[in-house]
């Protein structure tokens, strides 16, 4: 099973076309393995990126160096996945 410990989802708002284009470049950097949950589709629209834990430093550094406004949407993806799994198991245990 693929694990997502420490992975975060960042919500990024590109200020202008130039920043939107920069975000697209981030998508093309395969070594960072970022997963676009919502693709950057222009200024004024949020882009959501799941960033693997090992790439967090590089990605946040990139965003800060280009003055991107961003927030952390999900602090730890694995925590949510564990909760989801537990909810499903609990539902199966309930006798209907």
């Amino acid at each position, binding site marked *: *099973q*693929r694990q*997502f410990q420490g992975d975060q*989802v960042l*919500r990024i708002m590109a200020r202008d076309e130039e920043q939107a284009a920069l975000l697209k470049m981030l998508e093309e950097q*395969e070594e960072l393995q970022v*997963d*676009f*949950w*919502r*693709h950057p*589709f*222009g200024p004024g*629209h*949020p882009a*959501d990126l*799941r960033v693997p834990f090992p790439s967090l430093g590089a990605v946040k550094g990139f965003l800060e160096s280009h003055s991107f406004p961003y927030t952390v*949407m*999900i602090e730890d*993806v694995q925590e*949510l*996945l564990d*909760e*989801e799994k537990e*909810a*499903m198991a609990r*539902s199966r245990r*309930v006798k*209907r």
Partner: protein
Amino acid sequence: SSRAFDFGSYHTLDEIYSWMDTLVEDHPGLVSKIQIGQSYEGRDLLVLKFSTGGSARPAIWVDTGIHSREWISQATGVWTANKIAEEYGRDPSVTALLDNMDVFLEIIANPDGFVFTHSSDRLWRKTRSPNTGSHCLGVDPNRNWDAGFGGAGSSGDPCSDIYHGPFPHSEREVKAIVDFIRGHGNVKSVISIHSYSQMLLFPYGYTSVPSPDYQEMNELAKKAVSDLAAVYGTKYTFGSIADTIYTAAGTTVDWAYDQGVKYSFTLELRDTGRHGFLLPSSQILPTATETWPALLDIMVHVLEHPY
């Protein structure tokens, strides 16, 4: 009984397929199950048919979960199937609809991907077919349609999540729907359900040129999102794919529209950006419940505007 099923929980493929059998048993004469093909890994591609009889009636096609990780979509598909079955004979709109048209609902449009999200990678989006010359598997089934195929908003890189595939309809999951809709010949509406951007979209995605039916689609979308918002206040945006999100080539609804299916829409269900694809199961029922009036608006409009 389908009444014992927990609609407020996420379920595996086997659980959903088994529940579909129960739904068919519970509603004989209204619901039947048809197989339209097999996935790459050999799983059945199953569609629920809601019909009160007659042959070659005009029809509405609905699919959920072509992107496997968008679990709220499949869960909404399950709830919606049950709702359609239960409301026939009770709700005048549903009754009028099914007295005159058929509804086809494919709850798990990408079963290989869906199973993979349960077994190996919760965040898998694509199909699971291999790509020649690449170690990366899968094609984005919403970039694989023959509508501006290979254009902007899709990728030629098999490792990309928006990889369009080697050629249009290369994916069995896509080809099965193409063959079904073409073979049926009387599909009047295609509604493809995704998550999680809270939008109601219509053609085009591959070009920013407005479609000939833009005005009518826009008015209908406006009414649908207004009725959706009336349930819990959830705000949706609406418009053409290219205007509202981005240029995206090779999508389901563009293909359907270019085939002559005028009422082609795609929904992006909740959430607002707190959980993304990991929407808690406690939101399944509210999401499905609020989506229902929007779906019904579209379906009733299709019924009342024959073409």
